[in-house]
């Protein structure tokens, strides 16, 4: 099944099967519910910041396809320990990458998130990959609801 390799790579399948940071954070200072009206996928992102605006803890719960779950899982592992500014920068680069708008060096800063690059070939799945990220930003902005529409 070579043609599926770019999308369903082992790392993605692994994060789908065993999502990291897949739990609620009791009493989280920041949280947001995200949903994708196109497919009904729903997830919640939880965040706590240190006093100097570093992401101390980040997690998610919810249900979704392999792409949305793996993207959420990978997001939590790459954002933990990052400053708010860094988190927003990574979000921007990630968004560019999966929309196929990123130049070579722009994706370098994304590290292991590059594994999701294959999504850009599947226009109907971009929203799946971006849902967790929009929800994370909305949690930071202290909104309560995010949508991919």
């Amino acid at each position, binding site marked *: *099944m070579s*043609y*599926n390799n770019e*999308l*369903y790579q082992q790392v993605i*399948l692994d994060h*789908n099967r065993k999502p990291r940071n897949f739990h609620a954070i009791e009493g989280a200072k920041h949280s947001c519910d995200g949903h994708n009206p*196109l*497919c*009904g*996928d*729903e997830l919640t992102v939880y965040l706590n910041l240190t006093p100097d605006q570093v992401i101390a803890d980040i997690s998610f719960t919810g*249900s*979704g*396809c*392999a*792409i949305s779950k793996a993207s959420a899982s990978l997001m939590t592992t790459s954002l933990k320990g990052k400053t708010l500014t860094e988190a927003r920068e990574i979000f921007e680069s990630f968004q560019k990458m999966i929309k196929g708008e990123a130049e070579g060096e722009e994706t370098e800063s994304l590290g292991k998130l590059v594994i999701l690059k294959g999504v850009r070939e*599947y226009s*109907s*799945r971009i929203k*799946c990959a971006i849902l967790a990220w929009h929800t994370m930003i909305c949690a930071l902005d202290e909104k309560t609801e995010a949508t991919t529409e």
Partner: protein
Amino acid sequence: MPKPVDTITTGNSLDMDKVRSEFPMLSKVIRGKKLIYLDNAATTQKPWRVIHRAIQFETDEYATVRRGSYRLGEEATESYENVRSEIAKFIGAGSPEEIVFTSGATQAINLVAHSYGRKVVGEGDEIIISHMEHHANIIPWKLLCDEKGATLKVIPVNDKGELLLDEYKKLLSYKTKIVAVTHVSNALGTVNPVEKIVALAKEVGAVTLVDGAQSCAHMRVNMFNLGCDFFVFSGHKMYAPSGVGVLFGKSELLDVMPPYVTGGEMIKTVTFDKITFADPPHRFEAGTPPVSQVIGLGAAIGYLNDTGLSRIERHEKQLLNYAISTLKKIQGLRIIGDAENRAGVVSFTLDAVHPHDVVTILSEEGIAVRGGHHCAQPIMRRFGVPATVRASVGVYNTFEDIDALADGLKKAIRVFA
């Protein structure tokens, strides 16, 4: 373009090679894979004769309708109005005046809700729909109820995905103004006993609307037998172009209904003081209609008539039964809905693979199926699933298509194992 095939039937069964040769999209190859089209509940492919007729009309006969008295306009009007007559015959309506062209089933329901609904529904009244409605047959009624202070009542379904008629009887009362139900569920494939539902509604004096978007390309429908007051359907789900649909309404109701969309060609006279409206059906067809699409719909009706709806129904029933028995053998596959009476729609989930991932992997095999909530979130919630994979058959599908689907699903399971 090849010529349309004249004879596509032999005896009681369909000649599948001939049927398939009528549909150019079926020979499409996507990334080296032949298209296997199993999303007919969403929209259908078009046969040559529909494509030909629409092109022929646009190439050689095109003019707007019901306006110019030049010959071309008169002829276009005649072709357009002939389709209205063909549709009236096709669904057993009393007269062509009971056929209103709309942009689709969605607009037809909105027309009834806005025009008839707003006129007759008041505070404290009730509208009954079912738990398995498409959003298009939920939202117009919900908004109408909210506007008027009326209540929306919902006929529940059992675990097989069948409407509970005893519960429906309990919902009916003198407060019931409208009962709007789907003929066939787009999400589960259940065929509802609409004749019975309509007859019971009549006992309390309620007006009935049947959503036929999923039925009229798959079984013979007859307005006299159904007895409903309104019936709606879309062209693009019955091998016709998109952008055209039909509202059937009984004359005595259409006659008293105010216009929904207003503008050109739906009036008798206009002054700044007073406007008198045209009689139905033209009262409800403001603006230039989708003329070529209507002509294409006429060709699609011809196609269905020539092919024979009873043959189509039998063929699709065989495909459905084969699909159910084939899919049931796949481990971890759960079929949603198990109605006694059902049409060619199978909704299912896989334990290990989310519907969207299934759709992407099947797509790589050239197979087109729908994944999601099918614009029917309440019934998805009823069965505790956010989304399903849905395979839905049409006249041109074969047993091989079902085998390919099963193989594709097994691949999806292997990828995610």
